[in-house]
Every structure is written in C-alpha cells, then in structure tokens.
C-alpha cells in the first residue's frame, strides 16, 4: 500500500474536553440499548433493538453478526444518533471513551461525527448523494471539520479513492454515484468514513459487494489503520470467514438482543448459544457441493410481538419449559457470555 499524503491525525477535539472523557475507557461501549418504533396508526410498538450491550477498545475489532433483521444496522445507527424517522431510543447509553453520545447536544455531536466516530452505511448507493460527484462528497468531510481547504480536500479525496482501489481515481472522483458499480460505491463510502482517521469506525457490512481480492485489500487497509492509529472497529458482517479473520471479539445478535459474545477464536471453537451454532452450521463450506445447506427452521420473531422468555425458543431444538423465562447472561469463559439457559448443552460441557 503506497503511503499517500494525508491530513494530520485529528487534534483532540471538544470530545476530550468533556469531563466524562476518559482516554482509558473503551473506545465504544453500548450498554442496554433499546430502540423502538413506537406504536403508530394501526401498528403495535416494535422493539427492534432490545437491550443490546457490547464494547470495543481502541485498536480492536468487534464483529457483530446475526440474523438478517436482528437489529444490527439499527444499533449501529443509534450509536451515531442517526435514527430513521419514527424510531426512538428508549433506554441505554452509547459511550465513546466514557462520553455518552446520546446525551450530547446536536452541536457537540456534530463535532464527534465523522471525526471521532465514523460510519459506513449498509447500502452504498442510497448512502451517497446522487447529485454530487463522489470526490466532492469525500472532500466534504475535510471541509466540514475544517481540516483542509477546497483544493486540498479534493486532493485528499482522490488519494482516498486510490487507497480503496478505485482505478483511475483522479478521473473517477468527478463521477456521480450512479456511474459506479455496487462494489465501487461501497468503497467510496468506506473512503469517506476513513477520511479523518476516526477513533471509532462503525462499518455496516462494508465488504458485502466486494470481490474477495478487493475485500482483502480493504480489510488490510483497515488493519493498517488499527495498527497505526488504534482505530476501534465495529464490523457488522454476515461473512463469518471475514469475521474469523479479522475480529478480536464477536457479538451475535438475535431479535434485537446480543445472545452471545465471545473472543473471535473462542466463538468458533466453543459456540455457547444454539443460534450461533446454527449460524456456523449454515456456512457453505468448500467441498460440500451437492449437500443442501443446513438451515434454521421457522422465522425470527416479529419485533412487534416478542415472545416472552428466550427469543430463540420457538426455533430452538433445545427449548424446554425453563426457556419461557428470560435467560440471564451466563459467563461461559473468559470474556465469553451467552444468554442461553442451556448453554452447557450447547458447548457440550
């Protein structure tokens, strides 16, 4: 990777000036987060994030995996205070180095966003403004934080595009999002998030549209930033292989809750929740051609009508009467927790 002229690392912004700031606290700590779509006309309240907690320290990668629709993106967005219309945070906190973002006023938050905490949205096409050339959209990050003049910002934008492997970056910077392929847009969004080398990066499925070669390069780039700038990365992903490769810690989400949380290798080796196991079993593996893939019967619960007790109960082969009560968080091992009454059976111990 060719080193390119980049803006100096962010000078400590107002975040560090806050009394709650604690450089030693986790870079990002989400605690008991609850997000709802309140009951609207003819519809019941649906709790899409229901008490999710996790944390990530500087220089580390936390992977969030889970069922489609389990609230990963919602959690990620809430962390930056960017909720879709109609959604409301009911409880919980999102702390960046001890500072609770959910209590910051809009002005403070603005200085935090993009600079201390950046985000890669899940869908790259709609995340890009269709009427502004991508180069300018990247350059804007520098401009809003007063980190570079127009010219310099434009130059940095081209550099960033180059770093995310957009061929012919100088010319492409002037193109509009619709002129890019799906994977290229995704890389543009990544470039935008990396622009100011934030302390925390929340990346919502950043590499789904990338072929494996580019994906490897992007992951390497992220790794490099982590090494250099102690970037804390929250990686939402479906690709368990990618997760295995790059995550220090993994949180598994199901129906708005974190059902298992473990260091990367530990999770794969000793899954302690039936859902995690089901996930691992469903991974298509090389050389298994011809076998149907293992699937999980049934459907995830409707967030508007949550089952009481364990959410996974209706689909769980191990479900017993006891599962009708909400499972506590069990310590399975070092930094390894599981919310399953019967985790021991799952781990086989």
């Amino acid at each position, binding site marked *: 990777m060719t080193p390119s002229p980049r803006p100096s690392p962010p000078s400590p912004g107002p975040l560090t000036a806050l009394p709650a700031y604690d450089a030693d606290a986790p870079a990002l700590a989400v605690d008991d987060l609850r997000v709802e779509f309140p009951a609207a006309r003819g519809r019941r309240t649906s709790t899409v994030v229901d008490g999710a907690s996790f944390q990530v320290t500087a220089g580390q990668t936390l992977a969030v995996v889970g069922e489609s629709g389990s609230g990963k993106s919602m959690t990620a967005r809430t962390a930056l205070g960017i909720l879709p219309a109609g959604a409301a945070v009911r409880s919980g906190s999102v702390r960046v180095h001890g500072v609770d973002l959910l209590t910051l006023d809009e002005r403070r938050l603005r200085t935090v966003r993009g600079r201390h905490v950046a985000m890669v949205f899940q869908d790259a096409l709609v995340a890009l403004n269709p009427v502004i050339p991508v180069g300018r959209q990247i350059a804007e990050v520098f401009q809003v934080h007063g980190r570079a003049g127009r010219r310099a910002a434009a130059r940095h934008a081209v550099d960033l595009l180059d770093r995310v492997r957009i061929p012919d970056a100088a010319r492409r910077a002037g193109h509009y999002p619709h002129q890019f392929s*799906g994977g290229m847009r995704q890389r543009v969004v990544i470039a935008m998030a990396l622009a100011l080398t934030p302390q925390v990066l929340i990346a919502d499925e950043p590499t*789904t549209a990338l072929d494996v*070669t580019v994906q490897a390069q992007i992951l390497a780039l992220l790794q490099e930033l982590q090494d250099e700038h102690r970037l804390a990365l929250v990686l939402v992903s479906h690709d368990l*292989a990618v997760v295995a490769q790059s995550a220090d810690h993994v949180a598994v989400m199901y129906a708005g809750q974190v059902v298992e949380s473990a260091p990367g290798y530990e999770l794969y080796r000793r899954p302690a929740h039936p859902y995690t196991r089901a996930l*691992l079993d469903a991974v298509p593996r090389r050389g298994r051609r011809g076998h149907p893939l293992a699937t999980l019967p049934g459907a995830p619960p409707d967030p508007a009508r949550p089952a009481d007790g364990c959410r996974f109960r209706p689909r769980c082969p191990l479900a017993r009467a006891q599962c009708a009560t909400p499972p506590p968080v069990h310590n399975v091992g070092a930094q390894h927790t599981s919310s399953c009454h019967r985790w021991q059976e799952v*781990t086989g111990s």
Partner: protein
Amino acid sequence: MTAEPHSTPVLDVRDLVKRHPAGNRPLARRGGHQITAVDGVDLTLRHGETLGLVGESGSGKSSLARLLTAVDRPTSGEITVLGRRLDLLRGRRLREMRRNIQLVFQDPYTSLDPRMTVYDIVREPLLIHREVTPRADHRARVAELLELVGLSPDHASRRPHEFSGGQRQRIGIARALALQPGILVCDEPVSALDVSVQAQIVNLFTALRSELGISYIFIAHDLAVVEHVADRIAVMRRGRIVETGTVADIYDRPQHPYTQELLASSPDLEPALRGRAVPDPGYEWLR
C-alpha cells in the same frame, strides 16, 4: 419433469459490448469519454444450468446482468434467449418475453417502489402476466412466496423502508420468483443475508432448479456459495470473461492469474473451525 439438463442453450450471448458515457460534467459533449463496462462477452447458459459469475468489483457483472435481462440495451452484440433475439425485441413481444427471464437487482434499496406495500410489489408480476396465477389465488401465492424467502406474511402490508437490508433483498427475490421464469439472473442475491437465511435461499434456488428446470446466472463474491450452487463458473475482469469452466476446473485448476488470485484471497473459515471443542455433529441435531 425436467428436460435433459445442460443440453439446450436457453441463453446465448455473442460479442456483447456495453459502453457508458462517462463525462463527469453533465454538459460535456456526447461521444466524449466512455467507460466500457462489458467488452465483447460471449456466454452460453444451458437449460437447468447454473452459471456462476464472479469477478472483480467493477468488472461489469451487473452491467452484463442488466443487458441479459434487457434492462439496458447493448451497444453492440447479440443476445439470444430461448431462440429469440432479445436485443431486437420491442414492445409487446419484449414484454411477453420478460416472463421468461427475470433479474434480481443488486441494489435491494432502490429497486423497490417506496410507495408500494410488499404485497403489491410481489404481486405486481402476477398482475402483469395474468396467465401465471389466477387472480383469486394472488393473496395465497404472495404469502407463499414471502414464506419461501423467509419473510413473514405479516410483513405484506409494510413498505420497503421498514425492512432491513437483507429483508429487502429477499423481497426482490420473491418478486423475481413470482413468475417462475425459465431463466433467473441474480445479481448478488445473497450478499446481504446472514448465513442461515442465505442457506435457505441457496437451498431454494437449488430446489427450484431441480423441480422446475430453471437456469440461473448467479453473480456472487462468496466463492463458497458459488461453488455450492454453480455448475459452471465464468470469471470476469475489466469487462471481459477471462475464464470459463466447470466448478471443478476453476477451483482446482485455475488458469488465469486473476482466477488464481481470487481463489487465494478467498477468506477461509476452516482454520477457525478446525479447533472446535465440540466435534461437528452435522446439522442433524437441529432437525
């Protein structure tokens, strides 16, 4: 019930080229700079076959998919679908032809009409091609399609923006399946899905292929998934198909350097799983 698989070509592409105008200033003159997204592609898809299409990001896979389904018009080249020249069809003929070849769009956000409910979206193809399902059965058929892709029929009255990325992608798949097309072109249909739902969709595709003889063009980045579903694989790079072959050929004896690189950079889960404390019980325990 299916014809002899892998014999008759249902889709045949000759020397397909697609260029996009690439002026970055809207007022720039026509005929200025162009991006060649698809650059002389030859391709054959046989009955009941799944052709995996892999390649570099930006190599023209989506462009090709859009050409194959007549969403875009090729700059030059021929596309023959079920013996008819798709690129020459117009008007009603083309519309009828579309019943046989469907596309699952890469972008699940923009390809769903924001003002329609999921029910209306999935039902729309049935209304367009009335011969497929009698009107009275539409409701049941939509419910069934939603269930097939792992969505709850309760979702039918919601609108696209109320769904997560993976859920939207499945809506798109349900819509494409509604017509039971002979050819399904899927542009990264499972990339936004978690592995368990992905497995469900992949199994669905496989089942449909054997039951209905649907032929697929399956674009994906996850080589494991491609290996799982595809009979043959085409590797694209910079608008061209650089290598085609059976799954075994490509995976075990890749010829083109890019294919080799691709396989080499594919992240592998095996090392992580290797040390599993619990011996892999297979999936039976879930049954």
